């Protein structure tokens, strides 16, 4: 029996989209009718959307890209040094968050973090010398994303920094991230005072080697199951990582005791550092996300969003089917709550690679799992659920491992489809921290932001052109 025969033999159940009067006419007959709150697509995209739909390959390409994104099994295998493991890294390479950027256009926090990193690397004695070196173009600035890496906020990664090595147990991908410094005056928020540099040195000399040794002695730690458990303990994987950090400590605890050849005071300090930093796991969750993002990249005709990243100046998006291209728009301000006496006037525009979490179904997309943070980012628990539910309208699937108890353990919305973003006008929802705009300030608040629509309209237009 064909589908058409079936239509003639079963009761009609109608998806009525468009004029409400026609939907009401079906109601009037007592038949089943399902409505949509349809709106025209973002102006200027109708032709590109039609071309994508007509190509016939986008649906399949998106399914391929999403399957690859979800197939990765990230595991933390080692902590090493940036210059030893990150591809393309040199002593004068400084990685940063977001799309490509020149010093002249760099935001306050990015400049501050570069200044701090130049001092940390011993390339500059003080901030003014550091600025002069950077302004003279004597260092190479490059996005983390071009080096299999991700970095939160400014994302500045330099040669001597310890980096986590996250490998795909189900494939051959590798991703890297720096280790998280904690909150307050930290490099990633653009602070470069002596205490910041001092902490970075301790991380290089103690934290990195001790963690690396512990990991090598106990073996890899699977990250996906830790993140999945944490979502059921109130984390979103972006702005709340308290549960996943606690779970990580349980995993690494034994090896810290007997797996690292280091003085007990150092091993205790490492334990206390991780214990004292609820965001310790953010960078590792991000590296896990980067593995999925890289795995999904490069599928011709796919409109799946593989990267959303910001550098405080630009917000950048990459699509699976558009190669290395970045689609950028000015980084938007964050709608947030501010620490102490800080106000929105002190805030830098949106910054950081941490939006990789939203790209893989965490953060703003998993907000319904994290009622504890809604106050922090200025919302209500019901609002958090609604925000997550809205994200299903722009995603291609539901995450098989990351589940939300509140939604009857439904998988988080995952695999942002740029075509659905421009069709629905619903922009990806991001939970984020806010950096001070003046170099050296540090963190000033946290809040919510939506990815700029232009990035998606440009991406869809470019993808459609490739199909011609």
């Amino acid at each position, binding site marked *: 029996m*064909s*589908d*058409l*025969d*079936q*239509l*003639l*033999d*079963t*009761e*009609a*159940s*109608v*998806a*009525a*989209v*468009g*004029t*409400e*009067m*026609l*939907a*009401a*006419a*079906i109601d*009037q*007959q007592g*038949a*089943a009718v*399902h*409505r*949509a*709150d*349809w*709106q*025209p*697509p973002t*102006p200027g995209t*109708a032709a590109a959307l*039609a071309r*994508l*739909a*007509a190509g*016939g390959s986008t*649906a399949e390409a998106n399914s391929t890209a999403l399957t690859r994104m979800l197939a990765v099994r990230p595991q933390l295998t080692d902590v090493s040094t940036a210059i030893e493991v990150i591809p393309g890294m040199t002593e004068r390479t400084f990685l940063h968050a977001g799309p490509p950027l020149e010093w002249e256009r760099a935001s306050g926090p990015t400049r501050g973090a570069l200044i701090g990193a130049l001092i940390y690397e011993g390339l500059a004695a003080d901030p003014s010398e550091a600025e002069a070196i950077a302004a003279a173009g004597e260092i190479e600035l490059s996005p983390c994303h071009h080096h299999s890496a991700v970095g939160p906020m400014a994302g500045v990664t330099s040669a001597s920094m310890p980096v986590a090595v996250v490998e795909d147990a189900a494939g051959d991908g590798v991703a890297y991230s720096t280790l998280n410094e904690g909150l307050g005056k930290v490099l990633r928020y653009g602070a470069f005072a002596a205490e910041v540099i001092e902490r970075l040195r301790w991380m290089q000399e103690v934290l990195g080697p001790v963690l690396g040794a512990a990991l090598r002695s106990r073996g890899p730690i699977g990250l996906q199951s830790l993140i999945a458990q944490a979502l059921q303990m109130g984390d979103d994987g972006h702005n709340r990582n308290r549960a996943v950090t606690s779970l990580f400590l349980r995993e690494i605890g034994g090896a810290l005791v007997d797996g690292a050849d280091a003085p007990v005071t150092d091993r205790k300090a490492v334990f206390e550092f991780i214990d004292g930093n609820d965001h310790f796991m953010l960078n590792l969750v991000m590296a896990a996300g980067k593995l999925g993002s890289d795995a999904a990249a490069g599928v011709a005709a796919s409109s799946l969003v593989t990267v959303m990243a910001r550098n405080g100046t630009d917000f950048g998006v990459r699509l699976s089917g558009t190669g290395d291209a970045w689609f950028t728009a000015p980084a938007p301000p964050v709608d947030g709550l501010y620490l102490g006496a800080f106000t929105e006037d002190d805030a830098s525009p949106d910054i950081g690679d941490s939006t990789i979490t939203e790209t893989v179904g965490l953060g703003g997309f998993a907000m319904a799992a994290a009622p504890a943070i809604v106050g922090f980012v200025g919302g209500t628990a*019901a609002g958090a*659920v*609604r925000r*997550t*539910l*809205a994200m*299903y*309208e722009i995603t291609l699937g539901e995450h098989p491992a990351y589940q939300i108890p*509140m*939604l009857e353990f439904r998988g988080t919305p995952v695999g942002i489809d740029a075509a*659905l973003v421009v*069709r*629905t*006008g*619903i922009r990806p929802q991001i939970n984020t921290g806010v950096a001070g705009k003046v170099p050296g300030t540090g963190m000033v608040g946290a809040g919510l932001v939506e990815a700029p629509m232009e990035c998606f309209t440009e991406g869809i237009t470019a993808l459609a052109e490739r199909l011609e």
Partner: protein
Amino acid sequence: MIARVEVQPGRYHDSVRLMQASKVLQELPGIADALVAMGTELNLSLLADMGFDADAAAGAGPNDLLLAVRAENDQVMEAARLALEAALSAKPVASGGLDGPEPRTVGSVAARSDANVALLSMPGEHVFVEAMDALDAGLHVMIFSDNVPLEQEIALKAAASNRGLLVMGPDCGTAIVGGVGLGFANAMQPGPVGIVGASGTGIQELCCLLDDADVGVTHALGTGSRDLSESVGAVSTLQALSALDTHPPTELIVVISKPPAASVAARVRGAAAACSTPTVVTFMGETTIEEGAAEVLMRLGVPEPAYRSWDSGGGPVRQGTIRGLFSGGTLRDEARFIAMAEVGEVGTVETADGHCFVDYGDDEYTKGRAHPMIDQTVRLDRLAAAADDATIGVILMDVVLGYGANPDPASELTPMIQRATDAGAAVVVSLCGTRGDPQGRDEQAAALNGAGASVWLSNAAAAREAVRVFAATNGGTT
């Protein structure tokens, strides 16, 4: 009296909601005139016709919302503004709680429901993407919208037939699937006849005549106005024909269409002849719908009834041409076919000299407006003009009832019909409706008749009456 014209760039609402909002405003005390519409050429010209300052809307395009209000004073203007915002922001469906937002796309509504057919009525340029969503989700599609590019129709029908799915449309006004009317559809009792139609009002008129003979239908599958063109090649018509042929409750199939391309007509006739179910093919221009209905009834052994009519009582009628104001394209074509045999050339555009039958459901009059079966504004405007035009003797118009259509068309039409009959014009109404229609067919007929119109259930009979009255008042000269 003060007037205000405003353009809100980039604010979109569907045309029916805008019509309802206009109506809310017009009914407010102290409001003389109101127009709430998208800034299409048609609506901009209507704005000028209504005496508003068209320059104030210069530069408005079809994606911009046009607001024009004429009010007694500032207080009324402010009340109108508030009422308009309320009317435009009212949501037809509640949302909230753990249910999250309403689905935004056809793909989303398909994923969230057990829907097996999608009824799409967004502006034509956006239909293709949503229809592909529906096909990808395994849904049959009815596309009510017109203005869908031809190459997109061809691509959709190819994609659908590969998947064993049916695309009804674009520009498919009517279907009845398993007793459920989609789009503009009359209430039909179940019965032995299966209809395949490339014409919405053709299907409706056939339903209306069959209902008057007490014959019901299994399904009425629309195929869209261009399905029988050379380039589309009757893909949907052939699919629907074959499905009905193997559908046991369907004892007789009728194919009804506007004049098809010759090669396609031959293919459809061939497929019809090969059906194991008796099949009647009715192509407009060769026969009338009334003749098609007669053949169906004959094959079923049901006597053809004298289709109902409501006489005007017949007073003296002024001399002049026949002016046809139609909302259904096929009804216009059938009436014109009949009239031309008697009175010679009948034009189809408003600028034509002499007799002229215009289809106000045509694309030209529906860009940025709801179909005239819902929104009678343009037709009322032309009816008033015809009433006041001493060169017009007979006004012939259709009134289409059924689900999806205006809930009470007669109440809007009767004042203008009265004006026309008072001025000495004859008004002949072709009433397309069935006994079960929600508007109340006989009540509508009585109201129209009460304003001086003669009312005919058969469109062909209405056309013959218009010609008869014309001939009688013009001494048989044409």
